[in-house]
């Protein structure tokens, strides 16, 4: 073989691996979700408080990192990072699609709404929140709600915010809805009891 420098190359591999993990979390629409490592087993099962169960098997997601032999002569660290960025984008997209598919299949009908092909509006947001179980912080403020999906573009969200600001009636309906959600949350929390 030709001379190689495996020890130092291992350090670069470590750098690229860390870079990929961090970047995936940074740009993924689901990057803020807590990651849990399963060290054994082939599937996951959730038994909810209403005794309903869901089971899902592990899925292997992979992408390819490609480099042509004639590219290596001019390769720089920046170019190597760019190669990894391409792969990262593909992986993030696969992960996001996978999560969306799983959520769509797992969320019960009763918690779904149909936007009927229309755009995001204040009415859609109100309808959506009405169906959601909203959690609150001990100080009474609602816990952050994350939106995901083609409907929720930054422009569409800004437009909806404007719609609420321009329409006091919509604002009032939203406040009433959140007040009701807060009461529901309080009732749920007060319900955490070991009785008998």
């Amino acid at each position, binding site marked *: 073989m030709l001379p190689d420098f495996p020890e130092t190359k291992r350090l670069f591999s*470590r750098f690229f691996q*860390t870079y990929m*993990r*961090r970047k995936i*979390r940074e740009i993924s629409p689901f990057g803020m979700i*807590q*990651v*849990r*490592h*399963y*060290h*054994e*087993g*082939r*599937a*996951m*099962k*959730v*038994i*909810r*408080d*209403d*005794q309903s169960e869901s*089971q899902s098997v592990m899925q292997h997601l992979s992408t390819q990192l490609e480099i042509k032999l004639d590219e290596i002569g001019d390769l720089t660290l920046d170019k190597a990072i760019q190669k990894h960025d391409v792969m990262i984008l593909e992986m993030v997209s696969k992960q996001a699609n996978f999560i969306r598919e799983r959520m769509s299949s797992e969320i019960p009908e009763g918690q779904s709404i149909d936007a009927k092909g229309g755009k995001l509006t204040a009415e859609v947001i109100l309808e959506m929140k009405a169906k959601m179980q909203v959690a609150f912080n001990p100080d009474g403020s609602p816990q952050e709600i994350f939106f995901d999906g083609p409907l929720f573009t930054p422009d569409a969200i800004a437009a909806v915010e404007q719609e609420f600001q321009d329409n006091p009636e919509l604002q009032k309906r939203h406040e009433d809805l959140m007040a009701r959600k807060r009461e529901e949350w309080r009732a*749920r*929390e007060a*319900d*955490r*009891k*070991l*009785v*008998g």
Partner: protein
Amino acid sequence: MLERLIENWLDSASERSYQRCFCQMLTGQGFRVVHNTKHTPQEFGKDVIAVSPDGKLVGYQLKGNPGATLTPSQFDEIRGQLEQLGTLALGIPGYEGKVPDECYLVTNGEISELVSQQIQLLNASLVQRGHPPEKIKTITRGTLLAWSKDLGLALWPSEMEDFGNLVKLLNYQGDEIFPSKIFDPLLQHTLRLHETVPAPELRRRITSAAVMTAVALHSFSRRRNHFAEISAWTMFATYVISACEKNGLDFSRDGQESVLTARDGICELLGQVCEELSGGRTLVEGNPFSEFAFYRPRALLIYALMAVYWMWSEAEGWKRPEHKAVVEAIVPEDLPKRWVWGEAVIPHFLTYVWYRKRVAPSPTHDEVIGRILAEIMVNKLQEGVEHLASPYCTIEDVVRHQYQNILGCDDPLEGEGFERMSYVCEGLLACLVRANLKQKCQELWPNFTRLSHESISTEAAWRFGLYRTGDGAINATQIYPRTMQWAELQAIVNEDAAADCPAALRADPILFLLFVNIFPFRASFSAVKFLHRSFDLSSCSEESSKTAA
């Protein structure tokens, strides 16, 4: 190459470390080991007593002469012991008053011509006193090597990956935590856990795995790393149990003798930890300036090991009665501050509590469990804090994660979150429910229902005994209903426990307890319920009154 590994091992193994392997090889040849001494003044030269397949009582006096020849002067030192071995009646329960039919001087070295002549003279004098001729025989390096090859090496996996793993183990310094991850495939492949094995083959494979365990431990035994040895022999025992259960074989016929021999060795090793700590030795090990990260976790581990040793010896008799007071002096009345470094410490804590309940019964022990459960749940539900790592994370993972910036290492827990989930809270709550601390449970219930309770559920019980279950298991997340009846919770806590664990492991609660202390991720809700019933004094007495009724 593997033969050379065995030779190297035999040529540098101390008497203490090859004795365990020797007993396993006897077991593999159909002997039943009835006595395996710990080097005490009471041993009278009888290191090992075994019953041969044809019913003869055989005594063995072991000497460690690695890579050397037993000289006449060394023989002089043991002549008295050999004579006692051949002539004195045994005091072993079940064999009282009996004199061994055959005796062997065993050495992992050679015996000089002069020593052979002295043994002949000794035999002649025994004949004059009415003993049969050739009463004392010898087993030397050549025989041990042949046994190791026939009983061990012949069935070792021959894949390069396995060979590489064995070499990796031999290349360890020996002062590390035993690398179970590397040893696991070696045991799995030797015991053929991926296929069905008939009983005669499995019996041979068990002996082979035992020889491998002894060889794999070489670096650790040389450093007298007792905990590493305890870990490896515990793995050997649970893997043998799993292999018998997987193949649907009768454990008492095919695996029990080997497990009992391993168990004897483990008990002796616990005694050696105790011995090392007698005389006021502190729990500090290695570079003291890094102990800020490791001292308390090590202390908890040692307290748990000593608690196991105490409960084991109380149940089966103290082989070194003087150790009882030593253990009681080592294990403190109160735990040090800030000892909860992760969920992996909880099996140590529960073992400590169950020991304390026996030594100094008091209702405060259950109150401490309640306090710890409350602390863990608050930690898990709080935002912006470092959440306790899961029991799959070792103390080294946690320390590297906490100090990665100054250590310049990878973060083993990078990106992983432990918020709002727990593997241990169900088990801790079960202890409180069994203690009938209803008010405390009611107080803790709201936070308990806010957590996801994690566990691994195996499809076949035999997988529970392994370091990793493989694909035959499902990770289960349980979210409890917000409102529950106390009686319903009591029923859940009291329902049949450890049904998902191998039957032979359930039949040996001490081994089970040791196993969950070594592999904390096996201290599942089900396992803790079972162990609580076996070791918690209140549960034990409740159980015995039920039995009496």
